[in-house]
């Protein structure tokens, strides 16, 4: 997916948000001409679609869509493949909004006509019944379309399409934490397989008794960030460790960090800020040694971030991987700061902010995973086999609900 196009869509939506609110009724909002008022009792949770603010947004989207479609046919644009692709991307992202809005307007029109009919004098009982049921079904459809439009108008996270670097770090619990970190890495590798994503090991430092002290994998594919972004945080496990001789249950933790990949333009790294060394344990090095030690140790002085890249087959390639990972880490810091701000404003449950937040507890005895944000339980065995889709979707649904509520509040305050 073209990230540039994604951000242009985000910009389009920002424009809608910035759109000045038109007070009063516009001649174009037909539903306001209808004598029946919208039921106010639902207003506390659902935003009235008739609000001019939102209709204006939708009409603006339709206008933009028309303009962009015209430009797509322009021979100058057709001859420029990058320009064409960007435009085509923007158009296709608006397609659904526009077609749903058109269906909504059509449905509105039909509902009006049905209501007008029902007010006519001299209709027989059967006809009146038919019209009443028509009104009821159209109202239902209108409501559904209204919901759909609200969701479509939610700003999308421009990072959703990105590939990521996924880092798992053993937390408290000694050797057992290292083994647990390894279990989590495996879980994410299996989830990646299920989604036909490609997961590549970038860097790892193995723990003595198994598993990892830290492990970084790159996950590449369609909309990776949008699904894995809810995994950031502390994952706690309660089980009898392999190393335990007396059958006691221990609690240990591992921290997961999800870092969207950043390109060189987004994060600039000054060569003076980094120190690059390799660990050749051979002493004399050079011709004296033949060991596959292409590992590169990258130290970023301003932030103190240290990256150890071991998995590529040449030093040069490990160096580029290390820089790629450094960029992702620096970008994640930037993004996290922004998200913390939003999260605090929104009081979000599933914000991708706090690193130290305990998000899940995995209890082996009860074969249960508890997600503390969702306050939901899942079956442990299948969860660890990569079957985490339900949890991911639940987080996504909550985030969407929060965004909708925020939208409702913002409209209510502007209207009020």
């Amino acid at each position: 997916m073209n990230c540039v196009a994604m951000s242009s869509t985000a910009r389009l939506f920002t424009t809608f948000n910035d759109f000045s609110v038109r007070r009063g009724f516009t001649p174009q909002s037909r539903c306001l001409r209808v004598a029946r008022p919208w039921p106010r009792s639902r207003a506390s949770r659902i935003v009235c679609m008739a609000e001019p603010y939102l209709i204006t947004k939708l009409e603006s989207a339709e206008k933009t869509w028309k303009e962009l479609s015209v430009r797509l046919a322009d021979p100058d644009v057709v001859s420029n493949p990058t320009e064409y692709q960007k435009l085509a991307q923007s158009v296709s992202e608006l397609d659904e909004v526009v077609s749903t809005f058109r269906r909504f307007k059509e449905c509105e029109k039909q509902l009006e006509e049905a209501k007008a009919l029902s007010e006519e004098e001299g209709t027989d009982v059967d006809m009146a019944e038919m019209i009443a049921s028509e009104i009821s079904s159209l109202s239902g459809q209108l409501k559904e379309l209204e919901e759909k439009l609200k969701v479509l108008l939610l700003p999308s996270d421009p990072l959703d399409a990105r590939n990521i670097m996924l880092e798992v770090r053993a937390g408290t619990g000694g050797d057992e934490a290292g083994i647990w970190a390894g279990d989590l890495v495996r879980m994410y590798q299996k989830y990646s397989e299920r989604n036909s994503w490609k997961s590549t090991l970038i860097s790892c430092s193995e723990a003595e008794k198994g598993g990892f002290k830290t492990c970084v994998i790159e996950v590449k594919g369609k909309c990776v960030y949008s699904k894995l972004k809810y995994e950031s945080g502390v994952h706690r496990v309660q089980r009898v460790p392999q190393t335990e001789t007396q059958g006691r249950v221990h609690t240990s933790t591992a921290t997961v960090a999800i870092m969207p990949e950043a390109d060189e333009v987004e994060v600039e790294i000054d060569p003076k800020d980094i120190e690059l060394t390799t660990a050749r344990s051979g002493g004399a090095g050079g011709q004296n040694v033949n060991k596959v030690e292409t590992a590169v140790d990258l130290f970023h002085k301003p932030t103190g971030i240290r990256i150890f890249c071991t998995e590529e087959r040449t030093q040069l390639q490990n160096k580029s991987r290390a820089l790629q990972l450094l960029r992702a880490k620096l970008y994640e810091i930037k993004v996290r700061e922004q998200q913390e701000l939003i999260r605090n404003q929104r009081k979000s449950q599933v914000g991708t902010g706090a690193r130290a937040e305990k998000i899940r507890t995995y209890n082996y005895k009860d074969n249960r995973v508890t997600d503390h944000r969702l306050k939901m339980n899942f079956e442990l065995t299948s969860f660890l086999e990569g079957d985490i889709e339900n949890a991911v979707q639940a987080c996504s649904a909550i985030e969407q609900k929060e965004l909708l509520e925020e939208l409702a509040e913002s409209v209510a305050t502007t209207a009020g």
Partner: protein
Amino acid sequence: MWKLRSSGLSCGVCANFQIPSPRCFMNSITTSSIDVKPKVPLYLRPPSFSASLSELTKWHKWAKNLASSVGSSFINLDNGPDSTLLRRELNWLLQDLIELQHRSVILSRLESGNNENPDVSVALRAPLEEMYCVWRQRIEKRRPFQYVVGCEHWRDLVLSVQEGVLIPRPETEVIIDLVEGVALNNAPELAQGFWADLGTGSGAIAIATARALATHAHGDACGRVIATDLSPVAVAVATSNVQRYGLQDVVEVRKGSWFEPLKDVQGKLAGVLSNPPYIPSGDISGLQAEVGQHEPILALDGGISGTNDLLHLIDGVASMLKPGGFFAFETNGEKQCKFLVEYIENEKPGSFRDMNIVSDFAGIQRFVMGFRR
């Protein structure tokens, strides 16, 4: 021919893997290079073999255990690799063995221990029996990993290597950074000249230099590289690598000793590069087995102090370079670097300018470089 442990494998397959003695090449100096047929690296062989996923998993498990059983025993013995490095080699062996399309799925299956679809057929570039053989050779005979897979990844290249050719070292990757960052940066016109890579081995330095020259020539007439080596195996292997990178019009491989094959370009060279043998003869028996018992001694032994060839190069390079020409040589470390610089200052005063010692990424002084006045 070494004995196979009983595992019911056919011996015929392993007959191909008799390890030649490195010393035998000392006697074949006069053999012409046409007699040497370069071997095809594993990753380039067609995936015309197969095994079921369960058979592959079984082999992988066995190989991993064998690697883990080594622990630190090689380190204690001769500063060889430990189990972590051997397991990494195993991962790379798998990468080369499994054909590209299904590689990431199979690799993640092996890592995750997923037992589904055990009968799925996996396309391989070599028969699985061969993999039992070669991994045993790796662990029991300490045959270098790079000879096992027939290639070495170096900078942004993949070079074919085999017994008789020195395996390019990561330290040497820096020489190309010196060519680009020092030579071509300060004297861009050098990008159009003739460069020499002496003792080219697999052709690593020559090929990477040719690519650097092409980048820096910016479409103007690009320079050329002459790669020389005494060993017929090296000449054959370097030639095949040059061809694989499509550089036969830019890189010429000549057989001969140091400057002898370069009489026609004497005084005209824009640059002279070399990673000559620099290990003191007495140190060779103490080296890790992969190096001392398998790589060509010809490429390692630099005489009593290890500096015989380096001094020979220093003695000749001034007359080979044109004025303003660049040289860079790799050495055994700080002692040799300082020794060479002192030698140049005393014996070749006024011949060179802007001489420098450059360290490798492990912080060891590794390279001596300079410009001809």
